[in-house]
């Protein structure tokens, strides 16, 4: 079994805008990030501030208009070509004509690095609690189950950088808590770098080494909050609650530190 090398993410002066009727809708305005290899990082921010765009840029699905992203010193395209990046979107985006396990297998088939696969597709489907539905087609699954299938499909990859865009958003509270813990365990074992976009402040603090709070659009990094608590984390502890409060405060005051 070959573990992937954790990827270091360097984002410098990153700017991006979507085309609009009036020219360009500036989404990101000078994002600077330095994510250490092997760390678990959460990105939080108001709706529409550009979190998903930032993740797409890191995944190489969009091209920066200004500034740069380097992954362990390499351009994104090179890291993508070496199949070191796993990205998971908000929408499950499963192939409707493939069963759950076939969807997971397809990811491996296309993204395999010369057969160096860490996980077995069937085992990964079991891990997200879909053992009974491995042979089911996506249309017969609930939204939450589809998202779990998509999670399995992302986690089966042997990536050095995981980019997860609200992968738990369609899950109920219980499933989310159980899955999030399992996912963290899985990812920390793999030693990979994880960048996670979320609205769940509590979970962000529970899982992350760092939480980045983005300002409103056009987004900049407003706060970088180090979560130095020992694991497993006690959500009732004063330290934990103080950090949750700190993230929430930064979110509530989107212009703080920008001007």
């Amino acid at each position, binding site marked *: 079994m070959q573990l992937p090398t954790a990827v270091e993410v360097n984002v410098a002066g990153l700017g991006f805008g979507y085309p609009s009727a009036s020219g360009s809708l500036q989404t990101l305005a000078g994002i600077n990030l330095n994510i250490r290899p092997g760390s678990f990082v959460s990105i939080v921010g108001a709706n529409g501030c550009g979190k998903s765009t930032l993740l*797409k840029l890191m*995944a*190489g*699905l969009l091209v920066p208009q200004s500034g740069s992203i380097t992954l362990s010193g390499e351009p994104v395209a090179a890291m*993508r*070509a070496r*199949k070191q*990046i*796993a*990205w*998971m*979107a908000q*929408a499950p*985006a*499963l*192939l409707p*004509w493939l069963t759950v396990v076939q969807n997971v297998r*397809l*990811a491996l088939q*296309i*993204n395999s690095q010369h057969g160096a696969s860490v996980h077995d597709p069937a085992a990964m489907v079991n891990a997200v609690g879909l053992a009974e539905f491995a042979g089911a087609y996506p249309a017969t699954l609930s939204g939450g189950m589809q998202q779990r299938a998509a999670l399995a*499909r992302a986690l089966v*990859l042997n990536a050095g950088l995981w*980019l997860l865009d609200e992968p738990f958003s369609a899950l109920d509270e219980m499933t989310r808590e159980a899955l999030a813990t399992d996912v963290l365990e899985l990812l920390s074992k793999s030693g990979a770098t994880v960048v996670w976009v979320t609205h769940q402040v509590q979970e962000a603090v529970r899982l992350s080494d760092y939480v980045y709070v983005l300002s409103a659009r056009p987004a900049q990094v407003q706060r970088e909050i180090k979560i130095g608590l020992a694991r497993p984390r006690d959500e009732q502890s004063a330290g934990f609650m103080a950090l949750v409060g700190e993230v929430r405060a930064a979110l509530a005051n989107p212009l703080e530190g920008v001007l």
Partner: protein
Amino acid sequence: MKWSTAWLNGGVVLCVLASWEWWVRSLDVPVYLLPGPLAIATAFGMHSRGLIVGALVTTGEALSGLVLGSLFGLLLAMFLNFWERLEPAVMGVALFAKSTPLIAIAPILTIWLGFGPAPKIVITALITFFPVLVNSLTGLRAADPAVHAVMQSWHASRWEVFVHLRWRAQYPYLLAALKSVAPLSLVGAVVAEWLGASSGLGQLMWLAYNNLNLPLLFAAAVVLSLIGSLLYQVVVVFERRLYI
């Protein structure tokens, strides 16, 4: 279908046919203007051999042209999926070929290719390839952008995206095109036969027309409609098998 529903629908059809026959007889409509159902049925009996042979010839031509035209349309769509920049040129030529009136090219093709099945197959292919091309191309491009983004994140090649995503995404579009061109393929074959042929339902209809044998003309038309519906049903059955 329930038996009662079948009886009801059969009854309606019988009533229409009976009123048609009654109307033709009571008004004494000449048979060279509008034959009644009984006259048409008699024509069936008298010319059954000619109708069967003609049907086989025409269906063979229509099917050959349909398969050839559909494959050509499908291949062009695949080509344009990979070489988008050539779309204006390819679609321009395709549209030109599609827009040329059949009546104008059928005699030329007959001069070039003779009175046999070849010109009929070419004309049928010319009619059928365009809807398949347009629908298939639309389907290939209608692939879910969210799934496409996921595959891009895996660094999937364009070929992999085509094989795993686009090819399947075009199925509903392709089948819709096949449903409309399957009956249409008969039109191509018959029109081509009408303009010069040694056999086929079109030729039979042309002969009947020139002899004012309207019952035979109607009988041939009924056979064509039946074959057209059958071809449509074949695509429907194929579609069901594809999705189950």
